[in-house]
């Protein structure tokens, strides 16, 4: 039993994902409180380049094999389970992502460990580590103790700044033995399918006007476009708007979309569910327009109004055009 804190690193196309750094920042908080070591479990191929940005960890434990070059659910599950079983860390952090959520439950069941999901932050109470998770569309915060002696956690962004976990330095790398059965896994990675090209990259925009379900119908998107234009910005949106086909997938902000860091984020008709807010953890100014005064977005925005967007937007656009 090592008592260590582990972070299971995520990478896509040889690029370590932002969530890994968030987890390292979170992991360091836990490791300090537990007076133990922070290790990064890195599964992939080749490992050297990937390990180069994991300096926030004390040690990188690597599992390397060509079949692990890109995420392969069952192969990664076997690798992670074998490593965790052998070392029995105190806490294992997975990302609350398409990669982490494929693995966390399987590891937890196989090793008979508790798993806590949607965690945003951790703290200590009398020396005991505590988790804080957001649930029910962001309306409820749930807290409790991280079960001892060992547990698995999925981490959502927002509780820690990714930059705090990003250190360009390669810690010592210890290669772990390959788990058995990698040749007989029942899943395999075929290929990536790229997103449609030729659209703006909202992640590079300074001014974003974001639209959610509250805009009611495609017709009204024109009002939002006009406002964005008058601000010199670009329109983006939350999941329901993209699913309806009112905006292309390249405009999606949130867990499955882009992470944005604009100067201005004007959220129109967006309730503020965690999957969306994940994409805007760091906007300089966030203004929310939503007729529901209790919408979770108002807990995150700097300014807000319950004025009806359909009335407000045309007037605002006009005032910006001719002051």
């Amino acid at each position, binding site marked *: 039993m090592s008592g260590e804190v582990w972070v299971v690193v995520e990478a896509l196309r040889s690029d370590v994902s932002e969530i890994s750094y968030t987890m390292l920042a979170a992991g360091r908080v836990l490791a300090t409180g537990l007076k133990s070591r922070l290790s990064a479990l890195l599964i992939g191929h080749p490992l050297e380049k990937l390990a180069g940005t994991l300096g926030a960890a004390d040690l990188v434990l690597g599992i390397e094999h060509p079949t692990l070059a890109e995420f392969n659910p069952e192969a990664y599950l076997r690798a992670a389970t074998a490593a965790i079983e052998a070392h029995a860390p105190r806490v294992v952090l997975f990302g609350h992502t398409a990669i982490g959520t494929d693995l966390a439950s399987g590891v937890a069941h196989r090793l008979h460990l508790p798993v806590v999901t949607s965690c945003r932050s951790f703290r200590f109470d009398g020396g005991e580590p505590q988790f804080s998770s957001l649930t029910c569309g962001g309306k409820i915060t749930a807290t409790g103790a991280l079960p001892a002696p060992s547990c698995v956690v999925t981490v959502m962004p927002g509780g820690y700044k990714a930059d705090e976990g990003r250190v360009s330095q390669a810690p010592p790398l210890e290669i772990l033995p390959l788990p058995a059965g990698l040749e007989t896994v029942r899943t395999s990675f075929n290929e990536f399918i790229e997103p449609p090209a030729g659209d703006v990259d909202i992640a590079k925009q300074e001014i974003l006007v974001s639209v959610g379900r509250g805009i009611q*119908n495609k*017709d009204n998107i024109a009002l939002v476009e006009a406002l964005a234009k008058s601000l010199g910005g670009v329109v983006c949106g939350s999941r329901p708007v993209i699913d309806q086909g009112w905006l292309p997938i390249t405009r999606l902000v949130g867990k499955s979309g882009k992470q944005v860091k604009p100067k201005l984020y004007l959220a129109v008709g967006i309730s503020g569910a965690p999957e969306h807010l994940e994409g805007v953890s760091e906007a300089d100014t966030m203004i929310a327009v939503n007729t529901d005064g209790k919408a979770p977005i108002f807990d995150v925005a700097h300014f807000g109004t319950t004025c009806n967007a359909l*009335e407000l937007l*045309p007037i605002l656009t006009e005032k910006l055009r001719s002051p």
Partner: protein
Amino acid sequence: MSVATSYEFLDKVIHATSDGKQIRKCLQCGTCSGICPYGFAMDYPPRSLIAALRADDWHGVLESDTIWLCVSCFACANVCPVKIPLTRGLLSVLKTEMLIGGRIPQELQAALGNSRRYGNAMGESPKKRAEWTKDFTIPVPVLASHKEPVDVLWFVGDYGSYHPRVQQVTRALAKVLYVLDVKFGILGPEENSDGDTQAFTGEWGLFELLARKNIKALSKYRYKDILTADPHAYNALKHEYPLLGLERPVKHHTQYLMEHIDRLRPLLQNRVTMRVTYHDPCYLGRANDNNIYEEPRQLLQAIPGLELVEMPHNRSLSICCGGGGGGMWLDGFAWEKAHVRTTEWRVREAVAAGAQVLAVACSYEAPRFEDAIKSTGNEGKLAVKDIAELLAESIFG
């Protein structure tokens, strides 16, 4: 359950209403298509629809989605020389077939799903149906906790209960009823959508579900009349609910207030010096020959200082606001297909008639016409007020 041929479909249409067989007498005169507000944008406006069915082009009909432009305004049924029940029969039965085949615009799907789950098309919490009564100067009894009989059970409706603009109308009416000393009560959270508009989207099953819930609640209490400011609710309560077992006198608020005009008139103290034109709601007027045209006008004319002017399309020729038949929940679809809003026609007509105020008497209308005032650039030139609001203005200042 779904039909495969034109003949099976026509058979369904004929059996849908007691006068269904009139469809066999269609002269193909085209008056229906001509008067239809969206006829120009439909693949099969009513006349063409009947022609296509006679030519056995059921597949062609099913392929088209423009039936969803039909706002169930009864304009066609009203002018048909052989009195084919086009709106209640042919058009709503076609919508039902479209639903059975899953051919439904997403916008509408949400409204119907919400109606089923929450008892209102907006998807608001049923518990909050009486929120409009909070922080309100007038006490509004909710019948479940009010143990005494009332004069009037006021069926408020979805938009009157939940839509911020229409809540203003609801409160205005409450004040008028209160000052008239009418003992009224509402169902509050026990009330579900009247279901009338859902029925005209083809969802007669959903209508029945909602109606039965309402009938259960409406049967529990003691009252003389059911009052409503919503012509859709009026229409359902008057014509359809009796078929499901509830027979009570139903009155639109304009009818009810005219019955009390002798007590109301002395209270209309303040002058409302405005030129007002009145928009006849489809469901108060020509739908099902409800023909309530004069009471609203009489009420308006009782207000001192008010000058009433008429638009050319008045009474049974009124231009639909586009909210019926699911139109309230299909504005995106209608815009994409037709690139025109009937509300804009109406607003322009009101302005051309020299009106400063467009008076309405239906829960859908105030928000719809106010949007059109903005989109036609008539802000400041024309205002929209429900008759209840104008009366309240005259009473309270």
